[in-house]
């Protein structure tokens, strides 16, 4: 039985509860003030250096500046970049690179990770080995590839092909081989990080699942298909999203390996076109419009993908 006598009068409860909530909030605020202070610094810096440029870019994409006078021009910059001679090719090239990079750069690191996970010896050494290219500054790595892709016999790739009596290639210099060449270099440079992430994920898979699979007579491929891939699908899904977003921002590979545009624009990417417009043609507003387009494309892709992608199961 409830002892009603100990309860305060109803009229008195509400203000005291409010005061108590207010006091608790205040205490909480003051208790966490140091934490909030650190957070404010980060938020202000993030806002200033990340969000503000994005907002500014969108504003600039609707403006033009001539002789120091900035005017609003509506969609004119978007129309201008739409009619840019290289616009369609830049998007085609970027999408082609993204698809190729997914075929090679998405599957390959996963299978290397699965392979490394099977090793019982020299694991640390092998991990170091696959991660080594990531530690190389991208520009240095790409310059190495630039020499390796030399279309004469002086290039190491052509030297190897010739030694093996295989047909040589003009690599980046050939229109057909430009993108595959960029993907090979990019995959080599970047897959170390992805492999380590996959490895970490693979090591969380309970060994009993493989044991059960073996008892049921599953071979290595069926174990990968029915155990490894389902157990790592969240990481695979996340890496897919990150890879698409990263590869759509292709820039440094064409800049270094193909001196920008490549053979008749075979290497021109959307971001390189932005760079060209902003820093060579001095059309910052047009570059901002291109950046805005790319941002919207990636935002829409990310939003749709995160809706459709597998989610963490909750109990």
């Amino acid at each position, binding site marked *: 039985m409830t002892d009603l006598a100990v309860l305060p009068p109803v009229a008195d409860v509400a203000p005291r509860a409010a005061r108590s909530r207010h006091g608790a909030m205040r205490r909480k605020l*003051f208790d966490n*003030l*140091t934490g909030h*202070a*650190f957070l*404010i*610094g980060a938020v*202000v*810096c993030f806002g*200033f*250096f990340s969000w503000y440029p994005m907002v500014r870019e969108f504003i600039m994409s609707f403006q033009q*500046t*001539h*002789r*120091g006078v900035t005017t609003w021009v509506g969609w004119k910059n978007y129309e*201008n970049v739409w*009619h*840019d*001679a*290289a616009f369609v090719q830049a998007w085609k090239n970027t999408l082609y690179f993204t698809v190729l990079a997914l075929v090679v750069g998405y599957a390959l690191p996963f299978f290397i990770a699965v392979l490394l996970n099977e090793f019982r010896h020299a694991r640390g050494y092998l991990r170091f080995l696959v991660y080594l290219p990531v530690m190389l500054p991208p520009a240095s790595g790409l310059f190495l590839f630039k020499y390796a892709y*030399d*279309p*004469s016999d*002086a290039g190491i790739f052509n030297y190897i092909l010739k030694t093996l009596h295989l047909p040589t290639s*003009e690599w*980046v*210099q*050939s229109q057909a081989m430009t993108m595959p060449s960029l993907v090979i270099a990019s995959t080599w440079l970047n897959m170390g990080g992805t492999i380590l992430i996959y490895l970490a994920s693979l090591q969380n898979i309970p060994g009993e699942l493989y044991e059960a699979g073996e008892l049921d007579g599953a071979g290595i491929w069926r174990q990968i298909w029915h155990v490894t891939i389902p157990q790592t699908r969240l990481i695979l899904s996340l890496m897919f999203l990150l890879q698409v977003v990263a590869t759509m921002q292709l820039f440094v590979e064409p800049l270094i390996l*193909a*001196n*920008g*545009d*490549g*053979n*008749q*624009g075979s290497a021109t990417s959307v971001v390189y076109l932005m*760079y*060209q417009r*902003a*820093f*060579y*043609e*001095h059309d*910052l507003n047009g570059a901002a419009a291109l950046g805005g387009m790319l941002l919207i494309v990636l935002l829409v892709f990310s939003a749709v993908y995160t809706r459709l992608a597998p989610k963490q199961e909750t109990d």
Partner: protein
Amino acid sequence: MSTRLHRRIAVVAALSSVCLGLAACGSGSGTKGGSADGKVTITVDCPPLKTDNGGKSLANWNSDVKAFEAANPNITIKTVSVGAQCDNPPDFTARLQGGTQTDVFYGYMTDLNQVLDADGAEDITQYITKDTVPGWDSISDNIKNPFIENGHVYGIGYAGYTMGLVYNKTLFAQAGLDPTKPPTTWQDVATAAQKIAALGNGVVGYEDYSAGNTGGWHFTAELYSRGGADVSTDGKSATVNSPEAQAVLGNLHDMRFNGNSMGVKQLLGWPDLLTNAGAGKVGMFIGAPDTITAIVTQFKGQYSDWMMGPMPGDGGPAKGTLGGGSGYFFKKGASADQIKAGLKWITFEDLTPGQGQFNYALQKASGLPVGLPEPEIWKPGTAEAQKDNDLKKANTNLDLDAFANYVANPVPVVTEPANAQAIYAILDGVMSATLTDPNANITKLLNDANNKIQNTVINAGS
């Protein structure tokens, strides 16, 4: 207030000030300059690199600054080095758009338009007098005009170049060619290139650019040499589908695939060609005298290997040669005193024979090369031109014969078109196709490029 609260407020304040400090990093490198006692300070960018000529060029600049300040005790020069960024156009654009240029800042002749669009420079017309710039009337119009718009002066040109044929005399001799008689027509260039390429061992007879906008730049220079142009005189029509343009590409395609004298490796940008040249693998290319300096100072070449002839023409002397150069602008917001001080400094360092960049005696004493036919800034026949030539001859430590043909056969200078980089980007594709595709359809390539220039550069900008 409790001590704890004080401490927390201090943390917030400290973090905020860190952020504000970071934000303030981008607030520019110009100075307010003036003071009540009449003293003025100016910042000046783009001194020589500390790696140029083993640091000797920078040492000479620093001694010039000291001498200038001693002669002008009210003026302080603060040199701001931006490293190799001075010769990298994207870095210049970034500094300009960020408003971080110095009070007196370096720019190319082709930069006036972007500088004015960014509202980045002061109109200095009223400050140019016989007192501030005594040699003004002796400076070539080619050097002055690119910094002038509608009669208003926004910068002072102090260096100019014109293109010619740069060639390796050692390879010429090995190929049985007479280095004192460089090819003067494109037909002769093709013949000589074939002989040089026949030396083998990776040697290329004639090399050219086709990437990073440099392909379009050289295409334009070669087009000028045949009397053509990228755009009409009034700037309203693209003109790269002309017979002269066909001849430029036809000649290059023929040298590349029939003469096999241009090498397999293409899509070359600025450093690629000069790297090959520095390694002694290039017989000829077109360039200005300063490319030889670059080959020696940056790409391990030797002055003794290189000579220059005039720009080749089509069956005779060239009808035009591409010219360019650089100068100094004055940052928007610079005070009258700073502008006057800046003009005084530029006159001291860059516009007085026997001083600064023309101090050949000091350069010779420092072991620097003297005798290159650059910078070409004085009108022929003026007292400054005469004095400069005399001093150069008196102090030269290079073989002046190496440049005799280039100097003795001047070619009319043609400047770059408006929106040059946008046009060059389109023409890069034409050059890369010509130099990589044995079956390139030159007529179609030029018609396509012409349409692109007309629609996406000329019409879009009008």
